[in-house]
Structure formats: C-alpha cells, structure tokens
C-alpha cells in the first residue's frame, strides 16, 4: 500500500526567500504526524501546501497515492482545523458543519444523518442552532473539529488547533484529539509549536527549523536520540543539558572531562566504544542527572557538584549547578535535602548521553 501522504523534494519560495527547502516526508494510513518547530520555521506553510492553499515552487505532494501537486484544495480529500477555528460567523453551528457537504451537493438526508452522528460524537447537540459568536472557546474548537470530522476525509490537517485555549482546556482537548485518532484510525497531520503536544500526540514527529527538516522520527527517537543540537534543545522541558566537554580514549571506554567553576575538572567514564573528537557538547536530560545512588548501572557515574539553585516543582525538585560554564539542571526527588551553596553528590547516567559536534551541531554517537 502506498503512503497516504508522500511529500517529495518540496520547495517553497516567496520571491528570493526560501520558506521550505527540500522537504521529504511520508506517512502511512493511521499515522499521527506532528510538525513541530519554533514560529517561522515553515511548519504552517508546509501544512498549507499539503492542503493546496499555497502553491509550491518545486517537488510533489501525493495523497492516497494520487499526485495532488496542482490539485485545488477541494479535490484533495482533506479536512482542516484552524488555529482561529475559522467558523463562518453568520452561519449556525449546524450550517457550519454541513456547509462543505452542501457545496458538494450531498443530499439533505445524508447531511442530516452525518450532522447528527458528528454532533453526538462531539457532544455538541445542544449547540447546533447557535452562532459561533455565542460559543465559548472550547465549544468553537469542538465545532471546528466537527466540521472536519463530518467530511470523513483521507487526511485531517490541524493548524495549531489548541493554541487559543487556556492551559487546562488545552490538556483535555489534547487527550480528546488523541482518543479521536485512536477510535477513527484516521490519518492526521498536526502543526504545533508546543513540543509537549508533539510528544503526547504524535506517532511520528517532524522537527523543523528555518524551512528545513531537522529530524523525522517517533517521539521516543526524537527525545532519546536528537539528531542535532537544535532538536536536543527544542524538544523536552526542562531542556536537555548541553555541556561543553573534552573526551579522551581510555581503554575500552571514553574519559570525559568537564570544567567546574572551582577546583579540578570533573571526570566521568563512558562505556562508549566509538571514537569522538576532543571537543564535544555532551547532552544529558535533567532526569538523567539524579541523586547519587538513586539509579544503578555500568554507565552511572557519580561526581560532586556545588548547588547554585534549588527549584521545587511539586513532584520533583530541580537543582541547578554550573558545569562546563553552563547552568546544568538535575531532576531530584521532591524530598531532596539539597541546599544552595552546599556540595551535593550527583549521578550522571551516561547510558542516555548524546554527543554533538560543537561547530556543526550534528549528533556524533
């Protein structure tokens, strides 16, 4: 079976400005693809290109095995949910949902049946005769979803659909979208700048920056094996610690040296067998820097660090210490006794370590 969405060598320019550069992405039936990146990275433009709302400058897009590169949005068998919801302000909720069918000449009986179905599914039956102006943000969001669902398309497109909701509603809508995806088995492409949304929803993530794809992979791959410094820094909160270090071969493994503000540099032993350049950036997520003795394993190395800052966050307490000239965050138990200014034994779980080249930013291991 061909991929449901296949983007090949896609380029998009506005005049001399390159908005998208050589984008290649393909997904299969049932995938949940999330395009994530900072604002201006081209993710929304990419979504608009998939929808056919923006002409592309080069490459091809096929949906369901059909080349759609020059096909108008209406014939691409897609539905889209917008950041601003884009509900038609003068139409009732029911008319908003059935407008697409009406335009396509679907008969009235089918329209009513599908409307009822979707309204039940999204629990918006009491709202059907209201206008968008009379709805709350969350209700509008549901109606916008309904308008997409009723079309039963090959591909659902979401353009930052949750960014206008307050934090609490956002979390609950997020899980509803996830449930919807699981129940329908539908294929979805979802744009967000929120990396947590990306991690929770996606079966496949595309991280973008400056119009270029930085990495494509499952959430676990992206999180555990970021392809470069940008992805490492962008995905995960609090962000991955990126510490300048010097490496040196020592027997079977690798000796890693990290400077400290006072005293001798910290030395860690990694079991990594691969050869690395002398200067590297060592990437370690906060949850992989823990209290000494909290985790065991061949790659867990302890070292003494000075605590600069203690930030209790409820479930955990974050401790900040300066290493390699950077503020390094460790994630400790809530009951930790760490005190600012005191020395503390921290364990570094080097099984999860990433190494990056300082100049190119590319992953080394």
């Amino acid at each position, binding site marked *: 079976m061909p991929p449901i969405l296949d983007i090949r060598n896609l380029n998009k320019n506005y005049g001399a400005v390159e908005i998208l550069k050589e984008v290649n992405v393909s997904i299969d039936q049932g995938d949940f693809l999330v395009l994530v990146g900072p604002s201006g990275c081209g993710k929304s433009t990419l979504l*608009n290109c998939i*929808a*056919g*709302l923006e002409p592309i400058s080069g490459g091809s897009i096929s949906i369901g095995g059909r080349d759609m590169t020059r096909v*108008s*949005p*209406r014939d691409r068998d*897609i*539905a*889209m949910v*917008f*950041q*601003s*919801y*884009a*509900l*038609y*302000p*003068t*139409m009732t909720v029911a008319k908003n949902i059935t*407008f*697409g069918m009406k*335009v*396509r000449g679907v008969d009235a009986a089918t329209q009513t049946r599908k409307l009822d179905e979707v309204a039940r599914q999204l629990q918006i039956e009491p709202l059907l005769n209201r206008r968008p102006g009379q709805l709350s943000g969350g209700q509008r969001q549901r109606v916008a979803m309904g*308008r997409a669902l009723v*079309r039963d398309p090959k591909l659902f*497109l979401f*353009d930052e659909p949750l960014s206008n909701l307050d934090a609490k509603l956002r979390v609950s809508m997020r899980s509803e979208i996830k449930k919807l995806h699981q129940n329908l088995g539908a294929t979805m492409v979802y744009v967000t700048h929120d990396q947590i949304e990306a991690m929770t929803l996606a079966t496949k993530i595309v991280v973008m920056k400056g119009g270029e794809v930085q990495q494509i992979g499952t959430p676990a791959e992206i999180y555990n094996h970021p392809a470069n410094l940008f992805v490492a820094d962008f995905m995960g909160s609090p962000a991955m610690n990126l510490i300048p270090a010097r490496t040196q071969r020592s027997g079977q493994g690798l000796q890693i040296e990290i400077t400290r503000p006072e005293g001798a540099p910290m030395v860690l032993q990694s079991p990594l067998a691969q050869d690395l350049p002398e200067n590297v950036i060592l990437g370690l997520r906060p949850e992989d820097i823990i209290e000494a003795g909290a985790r065991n394993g061949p790659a867990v190395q302890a070292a003494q660090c000075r605590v600069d800052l203690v930030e209790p966050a409820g479930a955990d307490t974050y401790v900040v210490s300066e290493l390699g000239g950077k503020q390094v965050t460790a994630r400790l138990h809530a009951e930790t006794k760490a005190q600012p200014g005191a020395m503390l034994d921290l364990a570094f779980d080097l099984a999860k370590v990433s190494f990056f080249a300082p100049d190119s930013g590319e992953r080394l291991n």
Partner: protein
Amino acid sequence: MSDFSAFSAAPRAVAAPARPGQIALRWLLFSLLGLFALFYLLPLFVMLTTSLKSLEEIRSGSLVSLPREVTFEAWRTAWSGACTGIQCEGLRPYFWNSVLLAVPAVLISTFLGAANGYIIAQWHFRGANLIFSAMLFGCFIPFQVVLLPMARMLGWMGLAGTIPGLIFAHVIYGIGFTTLFFRNFYVTIPSDLVKAAKVDGAGFFRIFWSIFLPLSLPIIVVTVIWQFTQIWNDFLFGVSFSQAGTQPVTVALNNIVNSTTGVKEYNVDMAAAIIAGLPTLLVYVVAGKYFIRGLTAGSVKG
C-alpha cells in the same frame, strides 16, 4: 436621535470633582455648548420659519421671528411650481431624477466596492497592493481634472446629458472609496476563513456570497450611506454632465435660487433647499452612527 456608538468609549474622568469654582466653570461650559448649538441650528431654523412665511411677512418681519401665519404655499410652489430657468415645474421632476440616479449608482458602486475589497483583502496576489494604491489615489484627485475628458467620453458613448451617463460617472469615481471601505473591513477578517471555505470545497463566488456578504451588513450600510450622501449632494457632475430635464435636484435648486426672472421668493428658495436636503438629513438622523463611521473611514485611512 442618532446613536453614536463610535464614541461610546468609557467616559473618562478628566473633569475634576465639584467645587464652587468648578460649578461656575461647569455653567460656562454649558452656556458655551448651548451657544454653539444655536449657531449650528440657526440656519435650519431660519430656513424652516422662512419657508412657512408669506412673502409680505418675510419683508416686514425679522429673520428669526416665528411665522405669524403658517402657510405651506411656498412648499407647494417649491415642489411643483417654481421656475428653474424657463421651465416652471418645481423641484419634483429633478428630485426624482436624483432618486433615479442615486439608487442605481449607489447600488452598483457599493457592489463593485465589495467585490474589489474582498479580492484585495482576501485573495492576495502580486500587484494587488499596487492596484489598491492606484484606486486610493483616485479618491483624491480634484474632479476638475477629469471633467473635460469625461464630458467628451460620455458624448462618445452616447450618454451625454443622460441619467445613465451621470450614473456611470458616479460609479466610476465612487469605486475608489467603496473599495477602500470594504477592503479595510475585510482586512480585519482572518484569512483562515477563506482557507476553511476552500477546503470545504467552496470557490471564489461561493465564498463571497455565502460567507463574506452576509457578515458585511455594517460596512454595506456605511458604504451605502456614504455613497448616497455623496451622490445626492453632488453638484459638479450634475451641472457638468446633465442637460435640461435630466438635472439632479442640487442643480435645480441652484437654478431656482439664482433664476433672475420675476420676484425673489425667499420662502420658496428655503422650502426648496429643505426639500433638496431632506433625504440626506433623514439618513443622518436615522443612521448617524454609520454616517460618522463613513466620514471617519473616508478620512482616517485604515
């Protein structure tokens, strides 16, 4: 009276709390405001009272005195008997000329403005801004600069001295403003709406009819009022492009007032002036809020 929601921003407390000096100031304020109100009302009052007086009473009485004996004779003459040059049919035929000319001209120019504004604001393409700027500059030319060629063009089209000719001129030179109004209105509507409708399968015209026109009621009212006031009150095009029989009411009024034959009937002049001004005055009283929005939109761009 008119509802001016354009001004209904929360009242601000620049005025200080009341103290004896403040109370005196307050009185001064009210008397000033009252005096100015008199200044603005005086001409209307004088027009009205004069139009209800007989000629003798006008000659003997004072400008601002109320009529001793109210007579509608002057109104009757102004409407159906006053002379505009050699014809003595009153304002009536010219009033209808103005109606026949204003209604289609307003409708056509408003519709074109809506379509143009919709395209410029929502269907971005290369050069759209240039076209908009070109139209905008067109709003500002003194019409004298197109008067001669337009007169020739209308003659060439066989529309010289006709009402369709006047309609044509008003539509052409109204497009700039109507486009500006609609463009500035549609620019505030998120472009996602068009995108959503495209994905839903609607095309250019469908989106305009089903989505944009229904939400444009306020700006349609503003534009219609603006265009109606402009066209009804126009004199330059009327006097330049019409001929006896097709003149609009403003031209006829001027002819009545400045006709040199016979006795000067001031009461008829005033009745005629009120008749000529009544439609726009009525629009102002009924829909003042939209009138002001048009004025400010037409001057404070964007």
